[in-house]
């Protein structure tokens, strides 16, 4: 089921003074048009409940316990607002259930999924008015010490290595990670990886759902050097995919060189 139209952008044509709601993951977003003012409200269900998926539709009134969160004014003129799905605004630290070991010159392809964000953007100026994560992410720290590093989100994953084993959920985007051990001698053990989602774009395919570009981590276990290369599209075996939102942080190049200790935590 598509959560929003075409396939991940939906212009809001809301009846005046009428509450609407849509749900994705743990998030339920409520919207009401009040003249040139757009009222928003959100509620999150408990983490242990099954993920929600409900397209934008009319509701009688705001549920008990939910109150108006924000009042949005899109611009001086009547600029319309649309909903767009986007990837996270920070890197995601992907924690593997079990350590992954790669022998010298070893290579593995793993599939990891991360939750989407719902954005309200202006049509003409493309400004993000507000945004909400489909699942409230846990924060983490990626870095060799508690002094050097950066804040990121964290997710635990089984990281299956076969496409057929990937569970596709409407509120999550999948990334194909190719990990290559460039060392000739040293084996490489990976417990966690930092996935730069803020530098990736979101793609959609009717058959495969939401995907990001494929990412290749070339790591040298002996020197500690890591090169991240992003391809321009998701894996070829998915068929035709449409880019529905571009990366939040524009890339200077497709090759991102960084220290291995920063990537592996």
């Amino acid at each position, binding site marked *: 089921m598509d959560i929003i139209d075409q396939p991940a952008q939906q212009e809001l044509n809301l009846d005046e003074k009428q509450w609407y709601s849509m749900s994705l993951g743990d998030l339920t977003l409520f919207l009401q048009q009040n003249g040139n003012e757009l009222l928003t409200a959100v509620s999150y269900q408990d983490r242990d409940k099954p993920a929600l998926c409900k397209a934008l539709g009319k509701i009688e009134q705001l549920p008990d316990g939910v109150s108006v969160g924000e009042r949005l004014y899109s611009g001086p003129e009547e600029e319309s607002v649309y909903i767009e799905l986007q990837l996270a605004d920070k890197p995601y630290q992907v924690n593997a259930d079990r350590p992954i070991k790669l022998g010298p010159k070893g290579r593995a392809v793993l599939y990891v999924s991360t939750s989407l964000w719902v954005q309200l953007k202006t049509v003409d100026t493309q400004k993000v008015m507000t945004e909400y994560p489909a699942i409230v992410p*846990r924060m983490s*720290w990626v870095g060799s010490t508690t002094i050097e590093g950066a804040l990121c989100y964290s997710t635990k994953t089984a990281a299956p290595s076969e496409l057929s084993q990937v569970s596709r959920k409407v509120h999550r985007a999948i990334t194909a990670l190719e990990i290559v051990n460039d060392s000739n001698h040293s084996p490489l053990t990976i417990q966690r990886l930092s996935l730069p989602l803020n530098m990736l774009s979101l793609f959609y395919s009717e058959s495969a759902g939401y995907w990001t570009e494929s990412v290749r981590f070339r790591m040298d276990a002996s020197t500690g050097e890591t090169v991240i290369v992003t391809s321009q599209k998701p894996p070829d075996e998915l068929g035709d995919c449409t880019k529905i939102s571009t990366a939040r942080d524009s890339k200077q190049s497709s090759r991102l060189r960084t220290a291995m200790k920063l990537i592996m935590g």
Partner: protein
Amino acid sequence: MPEFLQSIALLAWVRAILFIVAGFVIAKLASRLFRKLSDNKLSTHHQLLGSMLIFYLLFMLFFLSGLKELGFSMSVLLGAAGVLSVAVGFASQTSASNLISGLFLIAEKPFEVGDVLKLNEFSGEVISIDLLSIKLRTFDNVMIRVPNETLIKTTFINMSRFPIRRVDLVIGIAYNEDIETARTVLLEAALHHPRALVNPDPFCIVTMFNASSVDLQLSVWVVRAELKDAKSELLIACKKALDAAGIEIPFPHTSMYVGEHTKPFPIQMVEPAVVDKGPSGK
């Protein structure tokens, strides 16, 4: 004085004033330009220092040129300045010390505007770093002026240097409780708390056999900006988790023994005294 000499003197005064006014405007513009160009590249106090330095250097150059136009000899001026600086130096030792300390602080950069400092009994946010002192705003909105010399001499703590902080919660459990169970309960509470960072992991250790309790320290890493809320919420979560697990958090108590500790405390029942409460019964 002949008229032509008077006109020459007037011209010199006009030129000197023009030099000084132009110097002021150019120095102001140059320092503003520096601020604009260094925006997002330098910290606020480095910007401030750089712009002040540019302003005063340029202005002094133009000012001295103006004085030269009036016929002042630079060598005499510099000599006078030397003598004056010795006199001023003796008179303003403290200010000079603060000024030099300020320069050292700016070079060392142990804090920036917006950082929270803990200094002796005070703690507050740095609202300005000036040449002689820094200004702190305490959390109850009081301004404190701290001379730069004091900062150079004293130990102070920068509470907001790093983006993440560790919250250490000391929680006592009763002696008859199982320590391992309590540790597990506390760690679970921390691991599931939304403000606790996943990495670095939280940990829980036994710190002391205290007078009334076995003290456990639960250490949880949180985002610096959320420290206050995180500490409060974590304490609440720990209390709820321990209550749910039926683990007692004891309050301080004293055991009294009479001689041999195996003997019970002797209690004797006596008749209650009759008190005359008066006609109102109060």
